[in-house]
């Protein structure tokens, strides 16, 4: 059973956050996945800077993203004037109502280009839903759950890719995707994925907290 996808508009620009870049790298199938997705995928410039900082601590996510950019799977986008205003509002203010630069830039670019912001965490989703109710948002799992990705990879490779993202990158899974993820990777594998909510790992189908 495929979950309701927020990526049903093939024309929409997908703006990936740092988290999505990390999760796709960990999946080991980023090229096949991005080739299968009909949408154009972009990242804000600052995402590369963030990943470069991780490189000093031994992460190779920045190199991988650069390869995807060089090979045309992902494009880098600069924030324009409209996006800059949103970016400013998202990074300046009280901690509870702001985000770090990469997360804010992702949302600002998505607003500016009427795209879909791919973000994986609750605070960013909460801020989007209250401040930008018209903005379309998704997450990394939406990419994995895209029908074209299933068609291109087949169920076995898709399951293995999602499992890698869960195990290697400890990918976050939003509550409405939990059942699909467990079914895909199998309950036995899911039990070893610490980034899944405990209730999900223990085999419950009812999750309360992401």
């Amino acid at each position, binding site marked *: 059973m495929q979950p309701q996808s927020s990526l049903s508009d093939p024309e929409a620009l997908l703006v990936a956050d*740092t*988290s999505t870049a990390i999760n796709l790298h960990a999946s080991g199938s980023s090229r096949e996945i991005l080739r299968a997705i009909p949408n154009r995928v972009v990242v804000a410039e600052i995402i590369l800077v963030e990943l470069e900082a991780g490189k000093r601590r031994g992460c190779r996510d920045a190199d991988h993203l650069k390869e995807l950019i060089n090979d045309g799977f992902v494009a880098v986008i600069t924030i324009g004037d409209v996006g800059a205003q949103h970016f400013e509002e998202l990074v*300046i203010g009280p*901690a509870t109502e702001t985000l770090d*630069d990469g997360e804010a830039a992702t949302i600002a670019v998505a607003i500016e280009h009427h795209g879909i912001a791919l973000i994986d965490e609750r605070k*960013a989703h*909460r801020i989007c839903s209250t401040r930008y109710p018209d903005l379309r948002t998704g997450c990394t799992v939406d990419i994995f759950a895209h029908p074209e990705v299933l068609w291109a990879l087949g169920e076995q490779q898709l399951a293995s890719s999602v499992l890698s993202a869960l195990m290697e990158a400890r990918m976050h899974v939003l509550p409405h995707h939990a059942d699909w993820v467990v079914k895909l990777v199998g309950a036995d594998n899911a039990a070893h994925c610490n980034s899944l909510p405990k209730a999900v790992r223990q085999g419950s189908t009812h999750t309360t907290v992401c």
Partner: protein
Amino acid sequence: MSALDSIPPADVGERLRIARDNADITQKDAADRINIARTTLVAIEQGQRRIRIDELQELAKLYGTSVNALLRREAVHVDLAPRFRKLPDAVDAAADKAVDIMSRLARAEVELENLLGIKRVHNDPPERPILRGDVRAQAEHNALELRERLGLGNAPIGDIVTLLELEMGVRVYVRRLDSRISGLFAYDDELGPCILLNANHPRERRTQSAAHECGHFVSTRRLPEVLHTDDMSHSREERYADAFGRAFLTPPRAVMQKFQEITAGADRLTRRHVIVLAHVFGVSREAMVRRLEELGLVKKGTWDWFQANGSITDQHSRQVLGDLSTPDAQKADADRPTTLRLNLLAAEAYRRELFSEGQLARLLAIDRIELREIMDGLEMEGSEADAAPVFPE
């Protein structure tokens, strides 16, 4: 009014100046990065010219931070690194790195505490500036005065890190540092007293470094300090801190009493005596013997005699103490990307959606996957689902 315009330009300028100083970047280099004259950057830092958001982004990148970390309302901005750089004995790269670790941990802890509404207990002992005259006598007196204030009497100090944290409100961090660095001390109005100790050193040595830094806290708290292992400084401040540390950990009366108990009936000092005494007071075997020499309980040169005659080894110590040797928990904690307490604060801030993953990763200076490992390890998402016991009202 834009979000940036809502912050007084002087505040923006001051935060930028501190960030630039911490990153050790000149005004000229910063100005060149955003294609403005150095005098314009000076005007921005002095609050006489507003900065644009695109300029801010560029400077944040250059300073290794983010606009959010610079201008988040609750962000803590302190300039510890420049203060250390002004030390007369020019801080080296290893010390610079240690200063960065301590600043980062303390800033993150304070911001998270403030956001979570945690009030830290301030219990600074009275400052005792070093006066003219015998430095050692002053240090001994002040150390015993502090012991009395803390209600320690003559009891050995089992865990100086916890004592400093709980009884004196010091932020103590134990992290793996270059082996040449023993400890760091700094005092800041916003952070309070902070001490960083080297996890690569044996526990007893760390204890002595902590007591030494405590001496600086009592005598010269406004001066930051780096304690090097090969410190040959004979300044009054260093001699004071050394003597303070010895008196604080091994007070004369207590040492004399324990010495009498442990050597009862013996006519010479054995390795076993030294090992047991050092264990009781939690100091190194060398520090123990030298203290016995200082107090006239053994002849001068006793430690040198042991050294020349097979020394007193860790193996000897294990044979004597057996199960009494306990694992070094602080060393294990130092292998984590951040401290256990910071992890708990960060997890709570994340659970309450006060901070995003990106904000926390930057605040703790770790990558996203390390942060996720910490969060997963704390099983934060399970606490509600498991109906964990709630605190009483």
